[in-house]
């Protein structure tokens, strides 16, 4: 039991650290992440460049720090779209039942059976690389989990006394659904969201690694791994550093989910 709480604490601590780093990036980074000093290219870690420099002589640590903004920003953006969409559809489906439920949960099951990464690849491949298309693909494949969760929770609640009491007080329509049903979905939702954020960070890095994320020279962890991968046999630190950052960020959210799951 104590192990789980420790995991959740570790997760929260690391997430807080990444948040601070992303907000304070201009003060923490000692170099411009885009500044190229070709004379200083492929330098090993030193006191001047803590994590060395990449193939274009850019400071790896500074790029890593600025990359935090992009990764966390994308994860937050995807969550901010995917969760409300899923919850709304799920609550409507669970509350009204009938043909609405039939259509909505059919759609949920279908999208849920789709392979997320492959579909994201196809989206970006067809519509063009870039962050908006990456986010769109992740939102479109990510919402069903929340719809399913909210639907189950709503169906359970439909027969409870406290919803009946609220209805007797004249609370109906959106206020009933979003004021009284929605809060009940929150505990289960937190675990799912923490898991999904870990997944989004990995998927975004994978797309960046494949060259389908942000356009260069914007610092992004997955793209940095790909750039470092070209010289990994000689200058391994260039790929090692951003990969470790991805691992840490994803691990933090997975640990948080692990801790939250066992508290229930």
């Amino acid at each position, binding site marked *: 039991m104590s192990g789980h709480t420790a995991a959740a604490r570790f997760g929260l601590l690391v997430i807080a650290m990444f948040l601070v780093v992303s907000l304070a990036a201009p003060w923490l980074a000692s170099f411009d992440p885009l500044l190229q000093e070709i004379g200083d290219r492929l330098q090993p870690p030193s006191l001047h460049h803590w994590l060395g420099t990449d193939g274009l002589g850019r400071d790896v640590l500074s790029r890593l720090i600025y990359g935090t903004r992009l990764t966390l920003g994308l994860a937050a953006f995807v969550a901010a779209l995917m969760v409300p969409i899923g919850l709304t559809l799920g609550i409507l489906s669970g509350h009204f039942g009938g043909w609405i439920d039939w259509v909505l949960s059919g759609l949920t099951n279908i999208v849920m*059976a*789709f392979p997320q990464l492959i579909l994201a690849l196809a989206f970006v491949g067809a*519509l063009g690389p870039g962050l908006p298309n990456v986010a769109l693909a992740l939102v479109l494949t990510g919402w069903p989990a929340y719809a399913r969760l909210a639907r189950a929770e709503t169906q359970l609640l439909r027969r409870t006394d406290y919803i009946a009491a609220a209805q007797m007080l004249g609370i109906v329509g959106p206020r009933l659904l979003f004021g009284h049903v929605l809060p009940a979905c929150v505990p289960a939702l937190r675990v799912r969201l923490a898991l999904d954020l870990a997944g989004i960070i990995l998927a975004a890095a994978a797309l960046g690694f494949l060259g389908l994320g942000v356009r260069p020279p914007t610092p992004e962890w997955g793209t940095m791994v790909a750039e470092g991968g070209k010289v990994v*046999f000689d200058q391994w630190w260039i790929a*090692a550093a951003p990969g470790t950052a991805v691992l840490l960020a994803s691990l933090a959210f997975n640990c948080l989910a692990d801790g939250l799951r066992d508290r229930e």
Partner: protein
Amino acid sequence: MRGLVSLVLTLVVLVVVTFLLLKLSPIDPALARVGDHASRSAYLQMRQELALDASWPLQLSRYFGRLFHGDLGVSLSSGQPVADDLRRVWPATAELATLAMAVSTILGLALATIAVRRVGRLSDGLIRLISLVGNSVPIFWLGLIALLVFYARLQWVGGPGRLDDAYEYTIAMPTGVVLFDAWRSGMPGALVSALSHLVLPVLMLTAYAIGNVTRLSRTTLLKEMTQEYVTLARAKGAGELRVLLHHVLPNAAALILTALALTYASLLEGAVLVETVFARPGLGRYLTTALFGGDLPAILGATLLIGACFIVLNGLTDLLVRLVDPRAR
């Protein structure tokens, strides 16, 4: 029956999604086919040939019709029908995913069994650590680091590619399954080379899958272990191993099988990344190469194939469970 209907429906939606992507893409399929320097009349003729000016519903129905005949269009980069390309590359991916699945099943079930037999802080903690880290590590990066350590520095295994150069261009590859083709070539060195190039990719995919296999099997086994029939079996004097293998496993088989099938489906996705890192020819590398070339027919063809495998594997688990577990019939 219900399961079958939703399976078919899901496949239909997958086709519609790829069709929409085709239509919404800024890439002009006719221009891509004839090239930038083609004359206007050649371009218009290609548009006519591809029926790009017909109404969308008509185009969609034609799209379905072509798919039924196994026609996925012509790849822009290879100039070959996409269906032929896919037929050539998929065995390599199936080989990789199947080997990884076998390794993660054996290791995962062994780990889960050990953890169940010794319930305690240490084994629990270890399993949790494996599944947490396994689910968090970017597999493409792990592949790079593994190449650096075990290939470049220690030289224990083969590097990128599926064979050493000496064999890559000398042995015939009729099936595309590299272990089989290397064995058929009759050169012992080829088989050794194929194996040494396979070790790291298989291990990377195993890292991707083993966390899920272990965690789900452990949960299932633990739940069964608290059932009364286990107490009864023990009271009758059955040893722990006998209880586990003869009493618990048959009851847990259906759920474990479901977990394995879902994991196998996700390995197809993982294979895309692993093949790219290790430069192994296969479905995933075909897809990523197509992505760079803006080769839309190839992108959507590969998406359809991987997506369909994924959906069918997902859908078949229900059927599988009913075969294995009489209670579900």
